[in-house]
């Protein structure tokens, strides 16, 4: 169940600004065998913005990043980084960007310093600038004391911070963070979110972040595009996305099939089109209705429920409404 909720005022439909950091127009990727990984997506990211691509595995996030970083060839459409078309001027596009990959992409046999030096050299940072810049960035990311150790001896969190430091050595105009906190323990993850939030707060650097984690997107991103089955089904600020459900919603945990219960509630006029069911849980945005009235009417129907609660909408609700499935359920 995918529902398109493109905001009319969303950036994808605005006039293309000349100074945009990332411009994506009709970007499409069809793999051999006819698998449509990305289906004509559009979005614009402004300089200094943190833009989140949210969605489960298979939604098309990694393929989109691949096209923007020139490792996946688009089937149709175009994309540019700071005005450099990724298909026509891939070297220029790569020169203004850096990537932090989801998996470990690092030379484990070399020291952390050497990994950073190689990045500096390939991105043509002048040698006299590279050394102090490496020291400065390593200190900022908390890996300065590890720099002369082989990366093979780093913990997962240390290696991840080194990879972020490496991406910053070339002073990218656009930074791609592909699932930057996957596989990290909660403490390291919280530290890394601080790092990313700090970068976003202090510097005129555009960040495109992909993530499974809704809390991560909510905390870091100015704008979020929800991808589902190769399409962008929503593109707005976290606040605006949450605001689609009003200020409050009712959540029912029922005995039996949630979809059947939802149909009954709709028939009784208790649920609108924006209500949704996932498993045995039915979620009903209240809009301007009173929670007590709605709950009383539901109980009057004699529906077998485990629990009835009211709460504020979250991005999870937006995601579930748009994609019809939970993130955790689609990871495999």
């Amino acid at each position, binding site marked *: 169940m995918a529902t398109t909720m493109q905001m009319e005022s969303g950036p994808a439909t605005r006039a293309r600004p000349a100074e945009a950091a990332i411009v994506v127009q009709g970007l499409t990727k069809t793999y051999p065998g006819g698998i449509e990984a990305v289906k004509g997506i559009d979005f614009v990211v402004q300089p200094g913005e943190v833009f989140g691509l949210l969605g489960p595995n298979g939604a098309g996030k990694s393929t989109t990043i691949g096209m923007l970083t020139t490792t996946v060839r688009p089937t149709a459409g175009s994309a540019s980084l700071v005005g450099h078309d990724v298909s026509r001027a891939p070297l220029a596009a790569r020169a203004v960007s850096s990537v932090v990959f989801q998996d470990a992409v690092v030379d484990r046999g070399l020291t952390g310093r050497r990994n950073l030096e190689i990045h500096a050299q390939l991105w043509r940072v002048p040698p006299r600038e590279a050394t102090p810049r490496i020291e*400065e960035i390593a200190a900022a990311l908390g890996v300065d004391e590890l720099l002369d150790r082989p990366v093979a001896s780093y913990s997962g969190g240390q290696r991840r911070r080194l990879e972020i430091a490496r991406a910053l050595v070339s002073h990218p105009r656009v930074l791609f963070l592909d699932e930057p906190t996957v596989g990290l323990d909660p403490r390291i993850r919280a530290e890394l979110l601080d790092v990313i939030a700090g970068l976003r707060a202090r510097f005129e650097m555009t960040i495109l972040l992909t993530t499974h984690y809704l809390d991560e997107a909510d905390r870091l991103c100015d704008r979020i595009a929800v991808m589902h089955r190769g399409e962008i089904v929503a593109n707005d600020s976290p606040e605006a996305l949450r605001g689609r459900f009003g200020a409050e919603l009712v959540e029912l945990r029922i005995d039996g099939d949630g979809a059947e219960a939802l149909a009954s509630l709709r028939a009784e006029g208790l649920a609108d089109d924006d209500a949704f069911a996932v498993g045995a849980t039915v979620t009903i945005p209240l809009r301007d209705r009173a929670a007590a009235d709605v709950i009383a009417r539901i109980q009057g129907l004699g529906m077998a429920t485990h629990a009835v609660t009211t709460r504020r909408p979250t991005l999870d609700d937006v995601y579930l409404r748009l994609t019809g499935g939970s993130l955790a359920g689609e990871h495999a």
Partner: protein
Amino acid sequence: MSAITPEIALRQPAVARSPFSPLATLARRRFQLTASRPRELLVPLVTPILFALVIAPALKTALHTSVSYEAFVATGTIGLLIPLNTMFSGLSVIVDRQAGAQRELLSAPIPRPLLPLGNLLVALATTAFQIAVLLGVAEARRIHFHITAGGIGWFLAASLFFAVGMYGLAEVLAARVPKAEEYIARVPAVAIVPWFLAGSLFSIKAMPVGLTWIARFLPLTHGLALVRYGLLNDPTALHDIWGMHSPTAMAGLSLLIVAAFAALLTRAATRVFSHAAIQ
């Protein structure tokens, strides 16, 4: 470890320096990775040295052949050393792809064919080192060569072109094969079987006619014939291939074949690598 406090002043990317600097960076990186695992340099040496120093003298005694047979086999083992070392170097491409920094290098603002070319430079350097060790050990074992200035030229050119071609083959194979285990399983067919057919231990004319003709089409046969012409001043292997009277003409023709092999495989390697790197 210090606390995480992002205070980094970001500036514009710098302008380009020498166009060769990325290649030097890539080659230096590959060399450092290779040097961090010395067994990668040493393991390919074991078999050829065993052939040159143990098996060849044993064969000489068993078959009652001449003293020069040891030199014949010592030079023949170069034809085993080059394929083994270049194939092992190709294995590092798969390691890079699966657990190394290949994707970081692919996202760098450099032409992607530089990546296999950087690897090639290091594969050539390590191969040169191993050949030098092999010849040095052979000399120490009192296996004598007949070296002239011209002969050195034929030897170096043949070894260089053949090593370049074999490394290209290794890159192509590494791009086509997803796992290291599958790659290793293919190494004997690529590196060892041709060696037995190419006149390494005996003249190609000692084989049945059909195999002799197959051997004439193997770049390794031409490479070995040139190495023997260069290091032993012996054009017999060239004559076995071409049947002509002029050693220089035959050497020129064989060198042309080995050079074409190198050019073709290098071109294929850069194309296949670039193609495989982009989905």
